[in-house]
């Protein structure tokens, strides 16, 4: 599932980067694309909660839940913060938010597998 989020995030990063380079603010299409990514994130997070409840293995539960909550909040806050600036820097914020989704989703995988430091 982290791969799905990564691919979707990469698309949004590329798209937002292109808009940023052309000095465009966040537009409707990018907003809906980010919303689609957020739906996927929410689906993965719900799956994560269910998996945490069902597993017999010992998983670092508090950290795992902390990351799941954080990853849900990244896009709404990032897009809201970015959309309120009508310059290339607004879409720049969206690039960073999408990148953070990638980082966080792989951290979630590491914590789930118990391979994090």
């Amino acid at each position, binding site marked *: 599932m982290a791969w799905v989020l990564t691919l979707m995030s990469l698309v949004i990063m590329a798209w937002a980067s292109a808009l940023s380079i052309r000095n465009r603010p966040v537009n409707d299409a990018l907003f809906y694309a980010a919303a689609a990514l957020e739906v996927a994130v929410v689906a993965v997070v719900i799956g994560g909660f269910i998996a945490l409840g069902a597993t017999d293995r010992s998983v670092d539960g508090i950290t795992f839940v*902390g990351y799941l909550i954080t990853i849900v909040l990244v896009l709404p806050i990032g897009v809201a913060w970015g959309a309120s600036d009508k310059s290339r*820097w607004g879409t720049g914020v969206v690039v960073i938010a999408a990148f953070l989704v990638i980082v966080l989703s792989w951290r979630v995988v590491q914590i789930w597998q118990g391979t994090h430091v």
Partner: protein
Amino acid sequence: MSERSTSTGPGRVLVAVYAIFALSATARSVVQIATDFGAAPLAYTLSAFAAAVYIAATVALARGIRPMAWTACAIEAVGVFTVGTISVVASEDFPDATVWSVYGQGYGYVPAVLPFLGLVWLWHTRESRE
């Protein structure tokens, strides 16, 4: 001429990155202190201090509180290089990492660059004498 806002244009991105570090440093230090403070008291205290500095910088840049932003970025610049150097030279005192360990290696060295971007941005948006 008046001062330019610190939270528009490139400042948007800067505040976003600061917010990420404020969040991750805070989360890291809360977990470290709550779970096993005795393991590395110095490193964990520095983690909490770094978190407080990032929160201060984020708020100051977002709200345009310039003296506070200058102070926070300056402390951050000193902190990342002091802690970074100590963590390389005296690694036995740092059994567990902080955001600033080895100049922010665990975070792509962004913590080493960020305070200078902050200081440059504050200088760039300062009140013009003209």
